[in-house]
């Protein structure tokens, strides 16, 4: 549910994150990987933004930048209007109480040597300001919130199933009553039926506690289910952003279209439709193609796409896309010939 509020809760403006690999004396020399490349994104209070893309697209890196787990190479990050891009650890401390992260691997993100009760209580202890009794009560409350029973507090993580561990991770993230939760692939390591439980849990918690979410996933079905707005990422930048329903119903970027069409759907009738199968592999972010990053795999690529990199621009209210020839705009106008025939409305 999108609440109408003046300012976004979290805003990234031209955010970039680079990593360097190799060294001057190694073969190939020093290389810069632009894992997140000039990303601008606003997250409004109460909404859920979904970040979707394939491996190497930078969505996980972006998620970590948003909660300042990484330092930002350039650009701005504003939380509740405050510019936190260059805050040091001390300044970030109060901010950290308000934004938390839930991680992908429920097997790796919980310290196997600590009891579950301690793991959930840790954020409370680290930030102080509560007595032991208060912490205890809060931990029990959190266990209940995520659907676990309080008499399991003394157990160790390995005694729980994957789904339960993810619940523990969520409880831990909720400990300090954050406003924003960034969840990096919260369900991909889980079985399908457990995924559904956790997806429902996240939705319930959002309603109950008024949370704002940024959900990062590669699973398009999950993103569609949970997000109000969806951002599609490719090689470090957002190529399409808009209300989820519209992005999925009528994608504007050829990559979004191919991505949606590639998902195998449990529907025998849909299986009969034509699939857009992209050629080639997901390119590496170390040496991205020139011009539009997607042009080597794009059916509609033109000269301009090879030379000039498209910027994100608005093609409809609240819908932006980074493409010279977005599929929406040109429905009504002349469309350049696709390089290979594909079916579908485009």
């Amino acid at each position, binding site marked *: 549910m999108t609440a109408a509020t003046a300012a976004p809760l979290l805003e990234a403006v031209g955010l970039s994150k680079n990593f360097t690999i190799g060294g001057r004396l190694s073969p190939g020399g020093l290389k810069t990987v632009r894992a997140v490349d000039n990303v601008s994104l606003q997250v409004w209070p109460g909404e859920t933004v979904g970040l979707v893309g*394939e*491996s190497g697209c930078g969505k996980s890196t972006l998620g970590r930048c948003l909660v300042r787990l990484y330092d930002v190479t350039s650009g701005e990050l504003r939380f509740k209007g405050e510019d936190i891009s260059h805050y040091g650890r001390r300044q970030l401390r109060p901010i950290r109480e308000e934004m938390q992260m839930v991680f992908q691997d429920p097997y790796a993100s919980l310290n196997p040597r600590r009891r579950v009760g301690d793991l959930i209580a840790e954020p409370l202890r680290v930030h102080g300001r509560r007595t032991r009794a208060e912490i205890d009560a809060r931990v029990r409350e959190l266990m209940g919130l995520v659907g676990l029973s309080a008499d399991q507090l003394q157990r160790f993580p390995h005694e729980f*199933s994957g*789904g*339960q561990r993810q619940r523990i991770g969520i409880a831990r993230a909720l400990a300090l009553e954050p406003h924003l939760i960034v969840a990096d692939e919260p369900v991909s390591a889980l*079985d*399908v*039926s*457990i*995924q*559904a*439980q956790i*997806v*429902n849990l996240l*939705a*319930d918690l959002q309603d109950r506690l008024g949370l704002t979410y940024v959900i990062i996933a*590669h699973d*398009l*079905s*999950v993103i*569609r*289910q949970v997000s109000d707005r969806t951002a599609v990422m490719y090689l470090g930048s957002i190529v399409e952003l808009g209300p989820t*329903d519209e992005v*999925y*119903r009528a994608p504007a970027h050829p990559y979004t279209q*191919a*991505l*949606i*069409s*590639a*998902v*195998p*759907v*449990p*529907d*025998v009738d*849909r*299986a009969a439709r034509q*699939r857009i*199968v*992209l050629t080639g*592999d*997901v390119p590496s972010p170390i040496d991205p193609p020139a011009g539009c990053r997607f042009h080597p795999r794009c059916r509609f690529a033109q000269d301009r796409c090879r030379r000039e990199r498209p910027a994100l621009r608005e093609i409809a209210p609240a819908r932006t896309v980074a493409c010279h020839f977005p599929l929406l705009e040109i429905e009504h106008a002349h469309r350049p010939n696709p390089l290979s025939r594909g079916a579908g409305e485009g």
Partner: protein
Amino acid sequence: MLKVRGLKVSFRSEHGLVRAVDDVSFDVGEREILGVVGESGSGKTISLLTVMGLINDPNAVIEGSIVYKGRELLGLPQRELRHVRGKEIAMIFQDPMTALTPVYTIGWQIAEQVLTHNAVSKRTARERAVELLTAVGIPNPEVSVDRYPHQLSGGMRQRAVIAMALSCNPSLLIADEPTTALDVTVQAQILELIQKLRRDFGSAIVLITHDMGVVAEVADRVQVMYAGRIVERAAKRDIFKGPRHPYTWGLLDSIPPLDGPRPHRLKSIAGMPPSLLALPKGCAFGPRCRYRFEKCGEPPRLAGSGGHDSACFLSPESRAAAWAGRLLDDKAVS
């Protein structure tokens, strides 16, 4: 072509007997694609590993019968099973990143399989490797054949693995979650490849997956497993249009739809799969099933009509009522 009857695979452990596969019987016909669907602990992988004779845990207890082209495989000494493995029945696994030996080129590894089962020269084996790499769509096969696995991307590696598996023209290919570790767009390529190969090579394929979507794309028949047992089995169309088992319903409900209305909440199956050490006495799905009644305390048999079997005591009428109830639920929440 492949007849599995009464397969039981258990593992002795310090906590008791883990029943991974509990009385499973199924057939695989020539040239068909059988999708085996289940979540973790369903026994889907172990049952097919047993067919290949790849269970070498000394604590394993295996009973039943696996007949391949008229020949009983269970109990065959490893020496003879090795002639079947890789030549008649081939298997590929989930993670292409670690599936190939890192110190040999892909051409060498494919040639190794060819040479193991065929008395041909090294040169012929190498030519065959190039031929296979072309068939699976790897660009520049003459050059790629001398590449090391780490020089290929995930999708290309999986293609190489598939090429290797098909090198001796097996009649049956078992693919264990072949696309799970791959990106969606690459997954689409591999699934397309698998279908093409069925056409070109004529092998039957058993596709193990947890993804009902994959099965809808590619399979002819579908078999759903839960807690080591088969709970439903039917032609693809029947399973999606008219699933009979409450677990299958639950599985289908758990998948968020990619188009159409978004449900307010997903209809998830409550609870967790049972521990394989202590399976419930009756229907293994009983404790989590909304439609459970007294009869479910006994173990249900896999039975049905028209090629559509399910292991559930719901009568056709009760089932229809439950199904109608589900549809009402759908309308209420969307």
